[in-house]
């Protein structure tokens, strides 16, 4: 509770004094750098970081597509639970159902034995 009190105090104080300090220093001619700094950080660190992760995801997905294997269906009792119908559709498919990767309780659609 003490820690929480301190954090909330600090939050209140920082946001109240921050604007005051900034406007005070702006009047003296400095302190107008913060927006510029964060703009540079956005374009030099944040956006390139996203781009690198996009490339990583793309490359890994390409790799997966190269050696795709059919999953084997095993009717485990702790998976594909249907104790109550879903309140949509035929009540047997989850909301984000994907026939390719989500088997129904009796196996994958299409390629049933």
């Amino acid at each position, binding site marked *: 509770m003490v820690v*929480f009190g301190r954090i*909330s105090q600090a*939050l*209140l104080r920082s*946001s*109240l004094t*921050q*604007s005051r300090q*900034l*406007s005070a220093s*702006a009047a003296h001619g400095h302190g*107008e750098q*913060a*927006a510029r*700094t*964060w*703009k540079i*950080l*956005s374009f030099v*660190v*944040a*956006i390139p*970081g*996203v781009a*690198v*992760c*996009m490339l*990583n*995801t793309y490359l*890994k*997905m390409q790799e997966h597509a190269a050696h795709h294997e059919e*999953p084997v269906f*095993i009717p*485990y*009792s*702790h*998976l*594909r*639970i*249907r104790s*109550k119908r*879903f*309140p949509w559709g035929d009540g047997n498919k*989850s*909301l*984000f*159902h*994907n026939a390719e*990767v*989500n088997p129904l309780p009796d196996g994958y659609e299409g390629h049933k034995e």
Partner: protein
Amino acid sequence: MAHQAHAYHMVDPSPWPLTGAIAALLLTSGTAIWFHFHSLILVSAGLVLLLLTMFQWWRDIIRESTFQGHHTPPVQKGLRYGMILFITSEVFFFLGFFWAFYHSSLAPTPELGGCWPPTGVITLDPFEVPLLNTAVLLASGVTVTWAHHSIMEGERKQAIQSLTLTILLGFYFTFLQAMEYYEAPFTIADGVYGSTFFVATGFHGLHVIIGSTFLAVCLLRQVQFHFTSKHHFGFEAAAWYWHFVDVVWLFLYVSIYWWGS
């Protein structure tokens, strides 16, 4: 207006707390009715009433603050405390889901095969889309700070650009999560793994959508000159909320996506 010898905001009577309470009752009981009897009437009525309440209540607050000047420094202090308490309650809301996850995963039951992830569950690779999602949210945390400094320094154009960028990153996250949900080899019906995964990440996704909406409202207000360099608590509250959603994601990523796979 009559002379007022204090800085506090004496609010006018408003119907919105009542309609909000009715909407909450309709939504909860309506969801139960939907699950048990497959009727959508009550839950949709609740949703419509909730949206109408939110729109009109917040419209009233913008009128009181921006146009009538009721949000004096002591009133703003109250708003700050309110937002801090609200986010604290949200922290405990998510704590419950983390508790459920760790309860199930640290000592997996024999039914699951005594292991985590449970036998037969193919998990998502944490270093593909989830890592990209982490980068997207961290980046949006940087751009929202750029927006804050732009507003404080009266850099209108930069504030609009940075806020737009933040919202776009938020939409990108939601798009990626929707894709992951569709591609996921497990579903919410796949035992306790599916339940804990989709309930925790689903509520987080809902919070991202709410945070994006909150920021979008701030962008509209910024475009319409509502914020000054010293008076923009609406934006600060949105930024706090956005950082909170960001931190929850970091915990979800490390716990459920990374350790849990």
